[in-house]
């Protein structure tokens, strides 16, 4: 069976976050995930796209963020591409929630939410195209 997939390209502006997270939630339901899980997927996608807009593109709104949703038999995959500053999975250090609570501060929680709410979070760079990718995978049980 062919895997269904479709793409959405948005400007790198936070005003479109609600559009993207709404789409991610609906896609999760179509993939067969329940409401609670769909809400978690939408949060993870929000965090990933926000990271791209605010950090990879440093808040510059004239760039593009490309999302691809892939529906497979076993999972929903959300691929997010950009041409801003990339990060790699082996560079990530997730905050320890217990330490965070002892020493509260702004920021640092997005990656933690992504990793807790998704089954896999991967960061990759494509040297050939100069694009960076964040891939979020939620398995369908």
């Amino acid at each position: 069976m062919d895997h269904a997939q479709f793409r959405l390209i948005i400007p790198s502006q936070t005003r479109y976050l609600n559009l993207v997270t709404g789409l991610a939630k609906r896609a999760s339901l179509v993939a067969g995930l329940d409401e609670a899980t769909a809400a978690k997927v939408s949060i993870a996608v929000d965090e990933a796209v926000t990271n791209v807009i605010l950090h990879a593109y440093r808040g510059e709104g004239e760039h593009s963020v490309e999302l691809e949703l892939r529906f497979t038999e076993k999972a929903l995959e959300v691929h997010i591409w950009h041409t801003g500053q990339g990060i790699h999975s082996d560079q990530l250090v997730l905050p320890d929630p217990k330490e965070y609570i002892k020493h509260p501060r702004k920021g640092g929680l997005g990656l933690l939410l992504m990793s807790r709410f998704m089954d896999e979070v991967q960061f990759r760079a494509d040297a050939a195209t100069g694009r960076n990718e964040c891939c979020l995978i939620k398995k369908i049980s």
Partner: protein
Amino acid sequence: MADLSIAVRHIGDVVVILPAGFINAHTVREFEGALESQVQQGRYKILLNCKDLNYISSAGLGAIMGLIETVRDNDGDILLCELQENVFAIFDTLGFTQLYRVFSEEAQALAAVAPERKA
């Protein structure tokens, strides 16, 4: 419909803030401004009634985290009530339910801060 609207009520010395809609990186400044405005006016007992809050991302959590020390240093607190399931999941997943008092009903939350009110 706007992504976020915020209503504010005063009950005694407690300020009840009711965000409705979505708190994300786009709307967080509005939410943060509503919180900061109360703190700047010397109101440190803040109850966030989240019954109409559909969604909060880490940007919104950061806004709350950014004020909690100031509020508690002034004998106040930030309490939460009536969280929807997915909003509660976010707080709970990050261990924030240990940091903030969370209530199922607004009346319970108000009763919890009542003993702290000055006679």
